[in-house]
């Protein structure tokens, strides 16, 4: 009887020592996804991540909307990092339509993008803290995020899902007196996140829990195609802001943070170092930004691409490389839109990292991959 069943339905042989455990999708430790782990006692034998519970069909939806009305739904996958989520799409549409963006708008975009990176990373860090049972590290980032959310609210008028970037610039100029407020709050924010070192990153309890767990070697990190902070934590100096500068990043002095260890500790520390670097970039951008000028090119009501054309743009988001491939056939809607997200690429490394780890280390290894379930499912 068993032989007649199709391969997926065949009853698996059960090893008495191995137990299959479903973590998620309702478990608070997994996000909107399921991790099927097979454990032998306390040790993980095999792991099968099962994403797809929050698939929204963003790519198909984009084919039925024009280039402007695509904006609100394309930032939904990562509402905390919505400016970075929109960035590759906006850059791509600008190339398709042949629009030159004013310099001031490019600086405003860089500021928004860096603020959003910090907002996302603080949220990620808060969840990383609570995964490890460190409730102070949940409260502090969740509170200090407010400083930057307030700045984004002043710029764009929304706390999350700003819908601020449009093809041709940004929706509105910075509010009056913004530079001063921004500088004051970013400086205080930087001072605050430096305090996290004492309570979290130099904490011997955290170090003993995360050091040498889930080690991803430099070769494996490249071979598995990981991006962003995961790649930099494994010793590869790769940041799209430096390697493929977009907008005004080449005029700014950007440094990358690289750690060689490749364990959970390094992967959790690199985003924190990136936040300190983001504060530097915001200060530089505020200084170098032209004090006046247009921030948005006036577009025709229903912009169209010029015939059959395709474009691929990518940016460095909070989770790594975020790419957008747009194919246009000369109509008001894109013919095809494909998002290539950093979260999904980093998730591929999870089964390799968890093999042989203790089950108790699973949350810290999983979340240190800088994975955002909703973005990976699109």
């Amino acid at each position, binding site marked *: 009887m068993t032989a007649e069943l199709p391969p997926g339905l065949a009853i698996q042989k059960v090893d008495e020592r191995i137990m299959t455990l479903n973590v998620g999708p309702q478990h608070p430790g997994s996000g909107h996804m399921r991790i099927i782990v097979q454990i032998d006692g306390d040790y993980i034998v095999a792991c099968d991540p099962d994403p797809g519970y929050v698939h929204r069909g963003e790519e198909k939806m984009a084919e*039925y909307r024009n280039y402007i*009305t695509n*904006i609100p739904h394309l930032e939904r996958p990562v509402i905390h990092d919505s400016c970075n989520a929109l960035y590759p799409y906006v850059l791509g549409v600008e190339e398709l339509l042949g629009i030159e963006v004013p310099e001031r708008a490019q600086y405003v975009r860089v500021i928004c993008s860096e603020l959003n990176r910090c907002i996302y990373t603080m949220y990620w860090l808060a969840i990383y803290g609570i995964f490890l049972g460190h409730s102070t590290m949940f409260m502090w980032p969740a509170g200090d995020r407010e400083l930057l959310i307030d700045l984004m609210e002043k710029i764009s*008028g*929304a706390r999350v899902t700003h819908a601020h970037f449009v093809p041709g610039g940004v929706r*509105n100029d910075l509010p009056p007196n913004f530079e001063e407020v921004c500088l004051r709050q970013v400086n205080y924010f930087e001072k605050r996140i430096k305090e996290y070192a004492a309570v979290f990153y130099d904490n011997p309890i955290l170090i003993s829990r995360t050091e040498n767990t889930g080690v991803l070697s430099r070769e494996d990190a490249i071979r598995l195609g990981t991006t962003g902070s995961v790649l930099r934590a494994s010793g590869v100096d790769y940041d799209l802001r430096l390697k493929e500068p977009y907008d005004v990043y080449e005029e700014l002095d950007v440094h990358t943070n690289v750690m060689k260890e490749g364990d959970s500790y390094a992967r959790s520390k690199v985003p924190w170092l990136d936040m300190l670097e983001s504060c530097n970039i915001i200060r530089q951008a505020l200084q170098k930004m032209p004090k006046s000028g247009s921030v948005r090119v006036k577009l025709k009501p229903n912009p169209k691409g010029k015939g059959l054309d395709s474009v691929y743009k990518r940016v460095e988001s909070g989770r790594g490389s975020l790419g957008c491939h747009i194919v246009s056939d000369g109509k008001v809607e894109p013919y095809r839109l494909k998002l290539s997200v950093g979260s999904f690429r980093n998730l591929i490394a999870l089964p390799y990292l968890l093999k042989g780890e203790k089950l108790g280390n699973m949350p810290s290894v999983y979340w240190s991959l800088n994975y955002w379930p909703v973005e990976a499912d699109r």
Partner: protein
Amino acid sequence: MTNTATGIIRALNSGIKHIATKRFTLRYPEEKLKFVGDGYQFDPSTGVGIAGLKGRHMLFHDHCTGCQLCSIACEGVAEAIAMVKVPDQQKQNKKSIMPQIDYGKCVFCGLCVDACPFYALYMTNDYELSSFSKEGLIYTPAQLAVKPYVEQDSEIVITKYGATHG
């Protein structure tokens, strides 16, 4: 071992310092955040918006021509705007139709404001739109014409004892 001990003492010390720092939490119903400007607006002559909160809309009956551009802009986003007949006769509005907004659907992206070429639709600082029924979330053109009363005065103040809402 000394490393472990000093590390734990540092962590505890950092936490103890927070007893003296100020409370950062915003006590929401009593305190309300202050926003820049009177809400998000758009200037069709330059094609650039004016910074402000994207809250509840405000409709100027004497500017609206019933051109439906806001409704068309919302079609691909939320389909929250419906054009309805209004009783009052305006000179510029021959068809006597004006937008009616369903805040159960609206995502507050403000693309309808960008679409309006007649300075008729703006957004305001009013964000407290909760209602006991779904019908209560549908704002008619008459309701949208009312300028909201907002009392928002709390701002982030940074002192040497930490940030607080003052």
